[in-house]
């Protein structure tokens, strides 16, 4: 018994090894025509992403196109190892043609030299379709580096039933948000209206963005790094207060702990972004109809938003199929079929950066989970209020890793939120200097 098992295992491993070897050897279908395929001689693209619904989009594309075939591989989400996988593969020279990169990480990839300028394949006509903020974030040093896919305005998700039952008003300002948190805690000592996610620096960054901070500013060829401005400090102190007074739950983003707290009703809110609508819907099918979405609270009551994540499609340095890759990426981002194929299965609530596609997205998303609320209109208004002044620096890997490390110590009390930001600042400046770039800050 055990011997035959061993033998089978050995046979399987040999076969796998051979398959890998031949796989490595057989990947040289380099096309001479810059990679735009024809029906007779289709181009095969490899595409790595983790965004919900990607598999469905690829299937729909392959079914309707003869000149390009897309091989899709689902990878872990960027910060959970996906980015490391992409940059190692590109460095090793066996990267895919097209990859998903979120806006914050795009400058880091560009500065590593992992991507190629797709300007020549991206017409002005296509470019004009997108939200200007998304175009700005994908244009670095005067070149276009990615096809924007979605915009990710911040939103606040809350349990309508809990808020109504306890007569808590949906907060419009951050001051009201704190009051609402206190009321919720008073109504039910276990209830928290939001979660502090110590592993997630991006929510904090989105709030700093919303408040008007500008961490990275390029002036000439110098990076000006400023994280001790009034806006960032205000946000840091605000979160410090919520954490110190135990008005928010502490849990890792999308962890079993977070999910368990949502399921048992002790967490009754979530500070997220447009794409979170699909996440909640697929995580908590039992709570259908109980959730509502509101614009994210602001400091002065006037609409304002940062961007929390948001994805783009970028072509890797080594790819010789840029034209086909951009054609496919453009199809995913700017056609009704592409958007419908992603959203209709129900796990994605992506908010297209292509403004004209929003009605199609709205039609494809079943908002029954939110009691039929017109969530895409809400996203639309939130999207228009995204503060256009923010840009990301080329050291997001270092900045966010350091911020994450320090935020992990905040709930234990050994580090303050302000201290965490300070540490991230110092690490960022040191990293920029190490790379030989000019930096002030």
């Amino acid at each position: 018994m055990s011997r035959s098992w061993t033998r089978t295992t050995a046979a399987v491993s040999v076969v796998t090894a051979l398959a890998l070897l031949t796989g490595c050897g057989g990947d040289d279908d380099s096309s001479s025509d810059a990679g735009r395929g024809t029906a007779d001689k289709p181009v095969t693209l490899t595409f790595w992403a983790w965004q919900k619904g990607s598999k469905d989009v690829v299937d729909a594309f392959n079914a309707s196109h003869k000149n390009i075939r897309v091989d899709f591989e689902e990878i872990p989400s960027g910060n959970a190892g996906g980015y490391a996988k992409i940059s190692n593969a590109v460095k090793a020279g066996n990267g895919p043609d097209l990859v998903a990169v979120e806006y914050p990480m795009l400058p880091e990839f560009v500065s590593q030299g992992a991507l190629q300028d797709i300007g020549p394949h991206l017409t002005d006509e296509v470019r004009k379709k997108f939200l200007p903020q998304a175009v700005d974030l994908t244009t670095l040093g005067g070149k276009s580096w990615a096809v924007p896919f979605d915009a990710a305005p911040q939103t606040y998700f809350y349990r309508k039933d809990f808020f109504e039952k306890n007569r808590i008003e949906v907060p419009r300002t951050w001051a009201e948000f704190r009051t609402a948190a206190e009321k919720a805690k008073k109504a039910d000592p276990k209830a928290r209206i939001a979660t502090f996610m110590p592993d997630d620096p991006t929510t904090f960054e989105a709030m700093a963005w919303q408040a008007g901070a500008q961490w990275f500013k390029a002036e000439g060829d110098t990076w000006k790094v400023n994280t001790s401005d009034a806006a960032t400090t205000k946000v840091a102190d605000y979160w410090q207060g919520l954490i110190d007074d135990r008005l928010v739950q502490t849990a890792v983003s999308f962890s079993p702990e977070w999910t368990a707290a949502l399921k048992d009703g002790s967490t009754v809110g979530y500070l997220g972004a447009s794409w979170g609508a699909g996440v909640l819907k697929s995580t908590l099918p039992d709570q259908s109809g109980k959730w509502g979405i509101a614009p994210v609270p602001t400091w002065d009551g006037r609409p304002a938003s940062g961007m929390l994540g948001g994805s783009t499609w970028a072509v890797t340095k080594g790819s010789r199929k840029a034209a086909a890759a951009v054609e496919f990426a453009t199809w995913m981002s700017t056609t009704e079929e592409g958007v419908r194929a992603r959203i209709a299965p129900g796990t994605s609530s992506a908010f297209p950066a292509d403004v004209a596609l929003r009605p199609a997205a709205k039609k494809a998303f079943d908002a029954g989970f939110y009691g039929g609320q017109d969530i895409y209109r809400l996203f639309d208004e939130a999207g228009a209020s995204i503060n256009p002044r923010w840009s990301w620096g080329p050291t997001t890997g270092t900045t966010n890793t350091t911020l994450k490390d320090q935020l992990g110590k905040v709930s234990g009390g050994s580090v303050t939120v302000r201290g965490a930001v300070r540490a991230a600042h110092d690490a960022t400046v040191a990293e920029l200097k190490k790379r030989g770039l000019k930096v002030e800050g």
Partner: protein
Amino acid sequence: MAAKARTSRRTGAAAGVLLTPFFVLFTAVTVVPIGYAVWLSLFTEKQSGLGFDGAESVFSGLDNYTAALGDRAFRDGFWILLGYCAVYIPLMVGGALALALLLDSGLARARRFFQLALFLPHAVPGIIAALIWVYLYTPGLSPVVRAMDSGGIGFSFFSPDGALPSVVNIALWEWLGYNMVIFYAALQAIDRSVLEAATVDGAGAWRTAFSIKVPLVRASLGMVALFTVIGSLQLFTEPLILNQGSGSAVTSTWTPNMYAYTAAFARNDYGLAAAAAVLLALTAALLSFAVTRLTTRKGARA
């Protein structure tokens, strides 16, 4: 004379044939990668302008080494390792030895069962073990934490103070049984007549254990200490899982190994990662040299 020469020639050829596979593999999987790491550690990626024109690999001498040594996060990693060793090694060696002595003494019942039960955790891969423990540490999910809370012991495994005990606990769980088996085997190998002589001389169980058995298994003690020290320097999987999956105070640069990993895979600085890895390897080499010297000298005197 001629026959002798032929034999020695034949021995030489045989030795050559038998040693070649070893040296080929040794070169391919040890010497070359180490050489490559040292080579990588001498280069830095430099950029120009705002950094969007791509990177260029530039020879930078020992810059990566000074950068690593100058980084507080890297140096802190060694302090954490020191703290870890100070807590872990006595607990591990003492615990494993105590269990082995217990099993070896006449007191133990169901010896085979306990041997197996204690060894079993070692059969669980480190990643799985860490995942299990993360679950058991997570407030709100873990029955252990709930039981502790209701028993009045509020301890946060993810807090800055809880980080070290959390990792030590996982490592103990994984390795205690393994080292216990090594000690037990050594104890079993002791000549029974020596123990009988001790009993005849009037030594009790305690006296036999401490004055006869422990000195006789000193070689195993030295070996376990050596492996544990080297293993501790390599500390990686368990804290990495705690770092990535739990939002605990274990940072991404908690140990030097993790520092190298983060430098390579989160910060994309392969030169810095290589330099950190080389520094860690040097430390490990020095330490193993010191431990071997210490234990052999003690052994020789005994």
